[in-house]
């Protein structure tokens, strides 16, 4: 294992983690924080925030950067939407981020479960904003329409990496399809804030990053997140390099110069990390 740089140190407090972990267990909920072995789990759980992983913890795809288990998922849990809302209320969340395992086995890709969760949160936690971090739903616009109609404040879909590395890193996804998802959602509902993110450290070049930013911006995307790829295990896609905090500052500057309204770029930035602060910043801009 390559030695970790100083900026990849995180704090972990077992008591604080247990408190949120027990709440999730009691309500039969999953978090992407736990399933993806997120490095920010200790910090986020301590602050009583988490990102819900709806539609089960088993994914139908096997992206090579991701720690979520691949396999045959169970049918959606009808109690999940209300349990998510209850957990959000108990944690006192002002902004809820919902993400999912990719459900290529479901005709609507899980869109209806997203919509039910948004509606349950609206009912139980009035005033709370919601961000849906969706899969590409195979580019099915009927499915995307279901999510859009539920009116989340933010629709997030990650492109994950540059065009040239897509097939190696996320073999069942398509670069153009992900861009199309972002473009379609923005065009269908222009008041919806769209958001995407990508990782660096997979072997991409500066020119490829620049082209990726151009392609994302062209979809009308409002918010961009850029973070370090961290290899979940030796069996996952190999790490090419650790980008420095200065590199991330440079990428942020690049993106802002190109015209992005909001950019979060840091080694441990993740698409849902401090999502509330990002949304507040964006609202200040409009």
């Amino acid at each position, binding site marked *: 294992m390559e030695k970790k740089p100083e900026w990849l140190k*995180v704090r972990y407090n077992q008591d604080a983690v247990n408190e949120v972990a027990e709440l999730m267990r009691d309500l039969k909920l999953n978090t992407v924080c736990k399933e993806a072995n997120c*490095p920010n789990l200790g910090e986020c759980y301590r602050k009583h925030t988490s990102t819900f992983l709806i539609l089960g913890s088993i994914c139908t795809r096997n992206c090579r950067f991701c720690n979520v288990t691949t396999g045959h998922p169970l049918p959606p849990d009808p109690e999940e939407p209300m349990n998510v809302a209850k957990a959000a209320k108990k944690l006192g969340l002002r902004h809820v981020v919902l993400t999912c395992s990719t459900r290529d086995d479901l005709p609507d890709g899980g869109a209806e479960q997203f919509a039910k969760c948004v509606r349950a949160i609206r009912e139980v936690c009035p005033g709370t904003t919601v961000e849906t971090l969706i899969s590409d739903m195979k580019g099915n616009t009927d499915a995307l329409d279901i999510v859009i109609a539920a009116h989340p404040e933010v629709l997030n879909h990650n492109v994950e990496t540059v065009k040239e590395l897509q097939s190696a890193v996320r073999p069942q996804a398509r670069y153009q399809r992900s861009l199309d998802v972002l473009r379609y959602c923005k065009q269908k509902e222009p008041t919806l804030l769209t958001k995407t993110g990508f990782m660096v450290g997979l072997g991409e070049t500066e020119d490829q990053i620049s082209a990726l930013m151009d392609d994302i911006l062209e979809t009308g995307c409002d918010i961009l997140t850029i973070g370090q790829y961290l290899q979940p*295990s030796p069996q996952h896609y190999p790490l090419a390099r650790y980008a420095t905090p200065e590199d991330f500052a440079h990428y942020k500057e690049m993106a802002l110069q190109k015209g992005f309204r909001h950019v979060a770029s840091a080694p441990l930035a993740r698409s849902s990390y401090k999502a509330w602060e990002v949304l507040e910043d964006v609202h200040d801009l409009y």
Partner: protein
Amino acid sequence: MEKELTMPKLRPEMENGVLCAWLKEEGDTVTAGEPLFEIETDKVVNQIEATESGVLKKQLFEEGDTVNVETAVAILETK
């Protein structure tokens, strides 16, 4: 009162962890929330915080040792 601090299970499949650094020496006063030792995992270096205040009485492992999860790593003398 003596209290054992154990190697946390940082992810479901974790069986052990490498204690890569001590951040406090034996005899040092420790406040709850202060980082006590570091464990390296595949993704990051985790600074494990003390969950109670007290004096670090005994380091039970040395830097570089692999420690099974839930095994006592340190003994803290609490009030």
